[in-house]
């Protein structure tokens, strides 16, 4: 069966510090991968998605970047965190090779980031 791992679960970082959040998927190959941010009252905001190694699409201009160095690894980064980067970050994947299932996204447990 497929599983998605996301870490760390909680992170407290000072303003101006770098960030690296990692997400890995097991039990599937060539997944589509997504990074979301969830803020209270604002729902899920899609930040980045990737359909393959090195292929990243950005949805929202911001202080963050994403990379996909391996097929089942997705990394969210920042060089200098801002207060506004605080939030709940979620990684998700879909099965890119099953037509009707491609729209079903499966989420990780999330990382709660507090920038102080």
């Amino acid at each position, binding site marked *: 069966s497929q599983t998605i791992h996301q870490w760390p679960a909680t992170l407290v970082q000072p303003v101006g510090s770098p960030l690296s959040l990692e997400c890995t998927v097991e039990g599937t190959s060539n997944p589509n991968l997504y990074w979301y941010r969830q803020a209270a*009252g604002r729902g899920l905001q899609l930040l980045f*998605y990737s359909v393959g190694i090195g292929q990243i*699409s950005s949805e929202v201009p911001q202080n963050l970047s994403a990379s996909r160095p391996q097929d089942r690894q997705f990394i969210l980064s920042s060089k200098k965190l801002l207060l506004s980067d605080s939030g709940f970050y979620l990684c998700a994947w879909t099965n890119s090779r099953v037509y009707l299932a491609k729209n*079903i996204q499966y989420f990780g447990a999330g990382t709660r980031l507090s920038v102080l």
Partner: protein
Amino acid sequence: QKEVEQDPGPLSVPEGAIVSLNCTYSNSAFQYFMWYRQYSRKGPELLMYTYSSGNKEDGRFTAQVDKSSKYISLFIRDSQPSDSATYLCAMSEVSQGGSEKLVFGKGMKLTVNP
């Protein structure tokens, strides 16, 4: 007008009540409709998935899609305290290629009181 509208609540009901959660949407190209359940401080988990219109039942949960009205619903029968969570609707178009993206509602926080 936002693509997907969902009343954020919160909604509080007694145990055993029938709960109705709803979303409306504006994009007539949406074909996939999903409901996710998210417990506090956890990631969303898929609850129900419907392709095109109609009803789908799974235990105490029923998902309903009315494409003519651009309206989807999730019904929970005999609600339990363990159903207390935030429920998010999500939907997407049929894509010919590339990444399939979901459009989410903001989520409705439900509390079922014992």
